[in-house]
């Protein structure tokens, strides 16, 4: 037999060690833990450990560990009871600026974790939790935009001195009628210049009627804006829920996927997802001292006291609202052309623009504030330390700026840092009246079902593996053992792949894993049958092994590629559970091409390679 190149043994050994290392986190299991992070998403300082220690000192809870992991702080406990108790204590100590979530922390040792090794991510069907697919009602948003133009366009035309004889809304178009062509042309020129987002055309057969529609580009922008608003709002709210590892993701053109592992109470989630938020532009009252109002609690009539989101600085704001979130059309971070510094460019609709114009004409130089108001369900604690759920209005000032000049529809907020401008634009969007969302899909998996699924899945996999191993060893004897070792390595590589990619393992994924075991041995069956055939044909054992592996190689490759094609199509087109299945199938096939050929061949060479005088092989 040709000696098998030693680098192949080394490669095999390295692959085995590497995958054993990266699959290892799956063996360690999990600690009950509490995860703490800042609502803003910033990293917690190292000194934060002292606050946790103080919080847990009074009730006499000793955590098994308390340390920073990434931007979160993770406190581990030895039992679920202490975890639950500590969760309440920590929440009470820290207040609402922090997100405190129950969490199953992996027991992976630090040296492994520092290499990037993580356990597989389990899908909701295996760990329990809720899954929502929300659809943003884009049509309503578009209809509202048209309505805005119906009231705004005629008003601006009047101001420009362009007279029209009629206006109305016709489906998705604003229809304007004119007395003569000169006026129509003037209007057309004006609208084309001022409203680039509108496409103009003459009504068919009516030369004096002009129709304005929103361009496709603008329609898409409106839709994206509405989806993004919702995405930001939902993310903020999900953070309040105190759920570890939540998923809030855009899916397709107008859907948002929300997955909350471990959550059971969907009523509460729906309440929170349906909370309303809005923005208010208000004047800052300067002739009264906000500091003393905050200290004494005496607020001058016609004003209200609010605090800023960052830094908790008090301001007295006029009760009158200049413009509200529903009138906000767009908010974009950008760079100020004149100063070259970051800014946020805001666009208001017609009504908002008019009030803003009226207000700014009289108040140049004075400060104006943006107030963010949200109605939420908040958990608080009474004197006995029992959690209480209540509705609470959250009112926070997100920006205060002085008015530099008179403006209406478009204006800029300057004097911001680059990150500040990004943040403000996001916050403005989140507070603008978001498009209505519908829940189009909801799946709740109870914790008992999740646990059952895991147990059944792994029992099925174990039984499948045992049956295949028994059969292969009875049928192929020593070579059967090679095949089973190769199959074991295949499983190891598959688990490593899933852990590294952090692909979500679902119940169909486990089914794929079991199926892969059946298919993966096929490569070895092909090879061994070929070896037997060559032995029958009178070839010497050493030559038969060579021929078996060599000739079967291309067949196996062809067969695997076609299965892989089906797998890749599933990954590309499939959603959710189907994709989980396909990822497992595809990874398993790629791994089997390696393990069944290189792995089992190396073993065959190792055992039989040095025997010079073999007359037969233990393959029958």
């Amino acid at each position, binding site marked *: 037999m040709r000696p098998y190149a030693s680098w192949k043994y080394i490669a095999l050994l390295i692959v085995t060690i590497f995958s054993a290392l990266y699959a290892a986190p799956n063996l360690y299991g999990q600690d009950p833990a509490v995860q703490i992070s800042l609502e803003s998403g910033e990293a917690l300082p190292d000194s934060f450990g002292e606050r946790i220690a103080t919080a847990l000192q009074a009730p006499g809870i000793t955590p098994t560990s308390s340390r920073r992991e990434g931007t979160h702080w993770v406190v581990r406990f030895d039992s679920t009871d202490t975890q639950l108790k500590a969760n309440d204590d920590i929440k009470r100590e820290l207040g609402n600026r922090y997100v405190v979530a129950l969490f199953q922390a992996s027991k992976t040792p630090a040296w492994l974790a520092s290499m990037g090794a993580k356990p597989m991510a389990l899908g909701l069907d295996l760990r329990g939790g809720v899954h929502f*697919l929300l659809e943003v009602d884009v049509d309503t948003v578009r209809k509202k935009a048209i309505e805005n133009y119906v009231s705004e366009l005629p008003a601006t035309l009047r101001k420009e001195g362009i007279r029209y004889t009629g206006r109305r809304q016709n489906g998705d178009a604003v229809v304007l009628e004119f007395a003569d062509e000169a006026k129509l042309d003037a209007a057309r020129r004006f609208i084309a210049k001022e409203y680039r987002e509108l496409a103009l055309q003459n009504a068919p057969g009516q030369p004096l009627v002009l129709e304005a529609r929103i361009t496709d580009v603008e329609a898409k922008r409106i839709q994206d804006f509405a989806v993004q608003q919702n995405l930001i709002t939902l993310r903020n709210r999900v953070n309040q829920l105190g759920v570890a590892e939540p998923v809030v993701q855009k899916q397709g053109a107008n859907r948002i996927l929300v997955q909350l592992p471990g959550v*059971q109470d*969907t009523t509460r989630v729906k309440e929170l997802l349906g909370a309303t938020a809005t923005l208010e532009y208000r004047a800052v009252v300067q002739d009264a001292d906000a500091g003393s109002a905050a200290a004494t609690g005496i607020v001058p009539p016609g004003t209200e006291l609010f605090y800023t989101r960052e830094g908790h600085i008090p301001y007295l704001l006029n009760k009158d609202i200049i413009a509200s979130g529903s009138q906000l059309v767009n908010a974009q971070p950008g760079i100020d052309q004149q100063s070259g510094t970051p800014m946020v460019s805001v666009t208001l609709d017609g009504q908002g623009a008019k009030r803003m114009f009226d207000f700014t004409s009289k108040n140049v130089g004075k400060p104006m504030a943006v107030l963010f108001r949200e109605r939420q369900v908040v958990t608080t604690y009474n004197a006995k330390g029992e959690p209480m759920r209540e509705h609470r209005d959250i009112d926070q000032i997100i920006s205060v700026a002085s008015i530099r000049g008179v403006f209406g529809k478009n204006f800029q907020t300057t004097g911001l840092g680059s990150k500040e401008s990004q943040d403000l634009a996001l916050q403005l969007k989140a507070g603008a009246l978001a498009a209505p969302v*519908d*829940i*189009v*899909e*909801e*799946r*709740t*998996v*109870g914790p*008992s*079902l999740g646990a059952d*699924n895991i147990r059944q*899945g792994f*029992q*099925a996999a174990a039984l*499948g*593996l045992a*049956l*295949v191993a028994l*059969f292969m060893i*009875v049928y192929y004897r020593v070579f059967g053992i090679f095949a089973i070792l190769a199959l074991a390595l295949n499983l190891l590589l598959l688990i490593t792949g899933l852990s590294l990619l952090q692909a979500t393992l679902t*119940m*169909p994924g*486990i*089914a794929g894993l079991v*199926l892969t*075991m*059946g*298919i993966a*041995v*096929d490569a070895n*069956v*092909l090879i061994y*049958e070929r070896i037997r*055939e060559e032995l*029958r044909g009178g070839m010497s054992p050493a030559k038969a092994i060579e021929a078996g592996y*060599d000739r079967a*190689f291309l*067949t196996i490759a*062809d067969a*695997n590629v*076609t*299965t892989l*094609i*089906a*797998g890749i*199509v*599933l990954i*590309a*087109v*499939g959603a959710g*559970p*189907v994709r989980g*299945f*396909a990822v497992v*199938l595809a990874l398993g096939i790629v791994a089997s091409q390696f393990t069944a050929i290189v792995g089992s061949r190396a073993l065959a060479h190792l055992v039989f390679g040095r025997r010079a005088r073999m007359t037969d092989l233990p393959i*029958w």
Partner: protein
Amino acid sequence: MKFFDRVPKIDFMAQRKTGLWVSSLLTIGVVLLLAFRGLNFGIDFTGGVLVEVSYPQTVELEDVRQRLAKAGYERNTVQFFGTSQDVLIRLPPAEETSSAKVSSNILEALGAAEQNIQLRRIDFVGPQVGEELTEKGALALIFAFIGIAAYIMFRFEWKFSVGAVAALIHDAMMTLGFLSVFWVEFDLTTLAAILALIGYSNNETVVIYDRVRENLIAQRRANIFEVVNLSINQTLLRSVITHLTTLLVLTALLLMGGSSVHSFAVALIFGVIVATYSSIYVSTGLAILLGISREDLLPPQDEAVDELP
């Protein structure tokens, strides 16, 4: 251990025409079956609500039905799921479909809180999601067919491509027919099973094709029928063993995997059996009918195969 002592000599190709006729008629039958009887689509495709609850003691289904009807869900389907304590409730997609309040309302109607009913699972799928899924599923099948056909054309020849894809369509149709006859629920996981079957079935076809090519080039005197028969016989044992191991793991999945992979396992077990037949009679049979010849497969320089790694 061995099943036969030497390569069997079964004349498979003698019945190739019968095989193709039977397959064609069966496929037409399944098309009619799907058109008139259809599939037992799960809520993944139809939309609707599915609730699985677990009672602390045995429960009367009639009682559950009445409670639901009282809450305004007259068109409910209630059945036991495994034991007489676990109940599966299905509701058709409601008129005001976007409201996900349904799930909370049902729990309330059942009196979940008082009766200590444990919620195992709630699935609510809006009808628009289901429609998209059907489209996507069909699209996935078509893309898989195209991809596989292109690969076989590249590796073999177009006549083989036609045979392989015909076998895939045959297997997918037969399995759908089986699911329709036995009214097995067709959900997303079952769809995944059909697609996995396509990969698996093609695996079978490719193994035979590969042998046909090798033998066509090596045995210059034999005619095409002899070559194909020899190739099928040579690979027969391997096919038997592979199906056995696959069926072993699928049986394990069926027995131990629980309800969520039940239809997956059933669909694949049936599909694997059909694939054995179709890889012989449909794919290879059709390729012969189309007139594959030695010239189609000869590599430009007449040597390659034996020197390949």
